[in-house]
């Protein structure tokens, strides 16, 4: 008894297939809306994950001290670099720190066999790898003995390995740094990819800080001090303590501004998460509006379709189609349009999301919740906006409709 019910989808699709051009135009708006929604959700999620990944390379349980002239320069107050004095004081006096690792950064040329690669040199201590949760894909990190002996060894990131060695094994080979220092490669860092800003995180070379000192000197001070609190819960306490100790070693008076900055990647992560959360919400809102506009497009075309097919509706009514049957026919048509539009939108959205992830070096996120949300919303829109035209069709007076030309 329910053939007209079970066959609704099929006959709806047949009707829509009769006007392929119009049907395609009708669903275009909705498809774009769904695609935008999925792409937006993927953007947001991809950006967030890549920021998180970036800070994971730093380690989230970390404090970073950097020199910072700030207002002191303008006020003509003396500023001091970060030096061994600071490192020693921090090691000796702090109760909250497990590790203090100085880092010097320098852009330098590296060369091997006539191949050159301009690179970020980072001179540091062996603990750097542990602090950055950086594992090695070959060999090992230089150790305390290397540091004590100013050994001419280095650890390469994945990018310089590719640039200087191609497919051959770099372990035990020698690279020339800055044209003067010949270092043996003792380890290769596992690749980490790109940061949100598009920086190649793997484009670096690690060197014992003492070796660096022998060739380029560290009198100008360290680029940064990386500190690890003994427990994550001590982060805030450590920050206060570090500030206090460095104020003392730098002889900065109470009430003055410091000549350094203490930041924690965790704070940055939280700030980024908050911003990206707001941004994602905004993008979703815009996408939802475009879905709504797509739904209104479907409604308009369906209203036109009902007006054009008034006579057909009259014929169907005259031979005995009930208002409910006519309503259901047009609801199915609206729904079929929505389903087609949503499917096209999902395909388009995923394509856009993948392409963007590729270009931006983000992790590719296929957000199931994004797809489900967009599809559910689109179907809701199709039903709601399909209802008005369908009700108009069902409400037509058969006699009037039959007179319609």
């Amino acid at each position, binding site marked *: 008894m329910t053939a007209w019910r079970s066959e609704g989808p099929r006959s709806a699709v047949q009707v829509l297939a009769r006007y392929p051009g119009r049907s395609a135009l009708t669903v275009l708006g909705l498809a774009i809306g769904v695609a935008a929604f999925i792409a937006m959700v993927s953007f947001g999620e991809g950006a967030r994950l890549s920021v998180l990944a970036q800070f994971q390379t730093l380690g989230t349980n970390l404090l970073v001290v950097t020199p910072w002239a700030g207002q002191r320069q303008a006020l003509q107050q003396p500023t001091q670099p970060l030096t061994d004095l600071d490192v020693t004081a921090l090691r000796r006096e702090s109760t909250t720190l497990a590790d203090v690792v100085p880092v010097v950064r320098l852009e330098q040329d590296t060369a091997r066999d006539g191949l050159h690669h301009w690179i970020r040199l980072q001179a540091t201590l062996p603990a750097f790898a542990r602090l950055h949760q950086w594992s090695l894909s070959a060999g090992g990190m230089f150790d305390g003995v290397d540091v004590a002996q100013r050994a001419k060894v280095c650890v390469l990131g994945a990018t310089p390995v590719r640039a200087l060695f191609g497919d051959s094994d770099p372990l035990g080979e020698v690279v020339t740094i800055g044209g003067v220092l010949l270092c043996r490669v003792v380890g290769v860092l596992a690749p980490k990819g790109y940061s949100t800003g598009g920086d190649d995180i793997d484009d670096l070379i690690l060197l014992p800080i003492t070796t660096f000192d022998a060739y380029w000197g560290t009198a100008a001070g360290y680029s940064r001090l990386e500190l690890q609190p003994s427990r994550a819960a001590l982060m805030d306490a450590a920050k206060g303590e570090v500030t206090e100790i460095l104020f003392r070693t730098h002889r900065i008076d109470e009430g003055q501004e410091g000549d350094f900055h203490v930041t924690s990647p965790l704070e940055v992560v939280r700030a980024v998460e908050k911003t990206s959360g707001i941004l994602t919400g905004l993008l979703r809102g815009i996408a939802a509006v475009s879905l709504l506009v797509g739904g209104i497009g479907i409604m308009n075309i369906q209203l036109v379709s009902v007006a054009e097919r008034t006579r057909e509706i009259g014929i169907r009514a005259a031979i*005995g*189609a009930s208002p409910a049957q006519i309503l259901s026919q047009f609801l199915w048509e609206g729904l079929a349009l929505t389903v087609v539009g949503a499917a096209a939108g999902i395909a388009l959205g995923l394509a856009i999301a993948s392409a963007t992830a590729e270009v931006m070096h983000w992790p590719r996120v296929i957000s199931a919740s994004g797809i489900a949300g967009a599809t559910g919303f689109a179907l809701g829109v199709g039903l709601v906006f399909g209802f008005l035209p369908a009700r108009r069709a069902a409400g037509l007076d058969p006699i009037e409709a039959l007179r319609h030309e």
Partner: protein
Amino acid sequence: MPPVEEAPAPELVVDAEGLCKRYRFGGEDVGVLAGVDLKIGAGEVVALRGPSGSGKSTLLNLLGCLDRPSAGRYVLAGCDVSALSRAAQAWVRLHYVGFVFQSFNLIAHATAVENVALPLYYSGVPRKRREDMARALLDQVGLGNRHAHLPAQLSGGQCQRVAIARALACNPRLLLADEPTGALDSRNGAEVLQVMLDLQRRQRLTMVLVTHDPAIAKLADRQVHLLDGRVVETEARAA
């Protein structure tokens, strides 16, 4: 319900008393039907005649449950249908009434079989079966070789025969034809009329035929003349 051969007493299919229809036009009450009494027995053919504006179409719409009377009582095949809801009216049209229109009113994008199968679709017959039934009906009206044609590929007479097959698809008790030959030339018109009357006789259908043509009207068992919304004259066929 299958037609009953030789019913003992002439059962009434149409039993209408005092049917009135008024419309409001720009605040003015316009009466189109002013109390029509009409009784039609099973298997009877009635020709409805009258000048244009006399209320023939309005009466036909009322008899076909496309419209509701403003006043009066209409019993169709034993049920009072004077005040049904729209959905119930649709059900009655589907199961008790078949329409044949002057302008055929076929669905342009549907084939002959699909057009004939449409009422069966609405009454819930599965696809395979209703298409078989539609083909059988098309064979009966002499369109055995036109099953898959679209209305645009058929002549006027053929279109009207498809419409007749469609009107009969759900085994109606009452066949209503509004100038069924009005859009056809005389030869095609005569053929269509012949097909319709043959089927009417074979299935003992009750039929109301609106026509201007006195020659066609003479084929009916009874002629009812309308004027200004009233029945002014009824004449039985000369024996």
